């Protein structure tokens, strides 16, 4: 063994500034998501197809007025669910399985910093989704109304609610189970959550239960505001807030990093 080195590896430890670490992590997470074909199918292709298909072809009776005015709010809710819940659950589940979370846990980035970065990545993706879907909806003749602040509040609370549930699933189940369950839940909530099929098509008893689902609260709230020009949809915001608190608390308690 030689006594003198090249000096290349001479220790000079130190963490990068926290904002830089979080920004770098959020950028990488977003890049990974946009590179993943299945994720794009879920977050971009399916919502876009559903919006275009059901707006132009008369398959589901969406009530009086333009179909797109009914559909666009539901599809926005679906976009939030696809990213914050399904996409985040699947990605995080596999990151846990492949030791990515474990490895990052021993890096200078704190665990809460990693979670913050994940949230930022979800928000960036949602912004891109909302821009894309809004442009398409306008092209299909959408005429939204209502208070943008109410819309923003619904989207943020919806994101929080779905993130909590997605992370709870990713942090407790096996990656394969998360993959299967997250897709199944996505499909069930797509059909039964008032996204494209109005909830009043279901039996009265079922309506009351389905109305408490986060996807139903989000699509109903968005529809009240954007289609009917309602004020603050406090009831739906309340439902989302409860889901957010319960989901995030449970995720915080039960999430396992490996």
């Amino acid at each position, binding site marked *: *063994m*030689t*006594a*003198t*080195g*090249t*000096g*290349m*590896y*001479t*220790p*000079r*430890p*130190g*963490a*990068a500034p926290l904002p*830089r*670490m979080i920004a*770098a*992590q959020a950028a*990488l997470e977003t*890049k*990974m998501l946009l*590179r*993943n074909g299945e994720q794009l199918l879920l977050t971009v292709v399916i919502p876009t197809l559903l919006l275009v298909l059901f707006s132009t072809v008369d398959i589901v009776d969406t009530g009086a007025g333009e179909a797109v005015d009914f559909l666009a709010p539901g599809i926005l809710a679906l976009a939030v669910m696809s990213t914050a819940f399904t996409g985040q659950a699947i990605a995080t589940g*596999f*990151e846990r399985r*492949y*030791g*990515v979370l*474990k*490895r990052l*846990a*021993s*890096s*200078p*980035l*704190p665990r809460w910093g990693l979670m913050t970065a994940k949230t930022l990545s979800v928000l960036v993706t949602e912004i891109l989704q909302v821009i894309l879907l809004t442009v398409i909806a306008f092209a299909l003749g959408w005429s939204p109304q209502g208070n943008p602040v109410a819309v923003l509040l619904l989207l943020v609370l919806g994101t929080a609610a779905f993130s909590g549930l997605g992370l709870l699933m990713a942090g407790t189940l096996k990656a394969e189970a998360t993959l299967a369950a997250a897709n199944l839940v996505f499909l069930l909530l797509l059909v039964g959550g008032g996204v494209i099929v109005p909830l009043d098509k279901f039996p009265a008893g079922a309506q009351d239960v389905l109305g408490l689902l986060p996807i139903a609260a989000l699509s109903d709230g968005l529809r009240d505001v954007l289609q009917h020009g309602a004020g603050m949809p406090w009831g739906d915001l309340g439902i989302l807030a409860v889901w957010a608190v319960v989901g995030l608390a449970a995720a915080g308690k039960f999430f396992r990093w*490996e």
Partner: protein
Amino acid sequence: MRSEPVVQVQALVKRYGTKTAVDGLDLVARAGVTAVLGPNGAGKTTTVETCEGYRKPDSGTVRVLGLDPVRQSAALRPRIGVMLQSGGVYSGSRADEMLRHVARLHAHPLDVDALIERLGLGSCGRTTYRRLSGGQQQRLALAMAVVGRPELVFLDEPTAGLDPQARHATWDLVRDLRADGVSVILTTHYMDEAEQLADDVAIIDAGRVIAHGSPEELCRGGAENTLRFTGRPGLDVGSLLKALPADCSAAELTPGSYRVVGKVDPQLLATVTSWCAQHGVMPERISVERHTLEDVFLELTGKELRS
């Protein structure tokens, strides 16, 4: 280099359910390279992962660079580099992308391009992690452990499953780290790896350290060495034995192949060759075998390391 301990483990106990993985383990590692050697399931990974802050001790204390790895994790993490036994990389990321990302989490990282070249990762190109070969994945994990310019690096089985060329590349890097003043704790079940790289070796079995010292100390301690030579078949071994010191043994293993076991020193070698000269024997292929860590391990535990 013999300064303050970089790792101090005292009476560490760690259980998983009813299984005790680490059972009252004591370990002091000083600056330099320390190898934690033991068979699969001995508690190597649990010990190292406790030092990295991943596991909370059931009892006992662990200090790494003077810090508690769980409670003072934020202060410790920037100062250590970690190579997990497997994984740790986004399956859809490219090697350089992940390495650059880890570099960005540190204040004064190494030059990523130089490190990529040094570890031969340049050939990975745009291939995503899941499609890299096992050796490339290992080298990337190694690069991720050192890119932040840590004071102390933990390598968990850094060369498991590598071809000889890749193993030597990893060994060279460990030597370079040591020469530049980086301390290394590595786990391995390869004897030669510990012998080649380590200033100190801790041999672990069933969750305890059963021997600790430099490779030379461990190989010398009480162990007997071997002298072999070939000659004419059917030599009088009894006569040879009489010429040797009392605690030696001699045997003809196969016709014409002889072995002397005992304290092999220059005097013993002279005794054997002069006996041969007296008996008109030309000893060919005479060889002295130093005791290896493999033998030490076998003597201490009665087990093969790579079982």
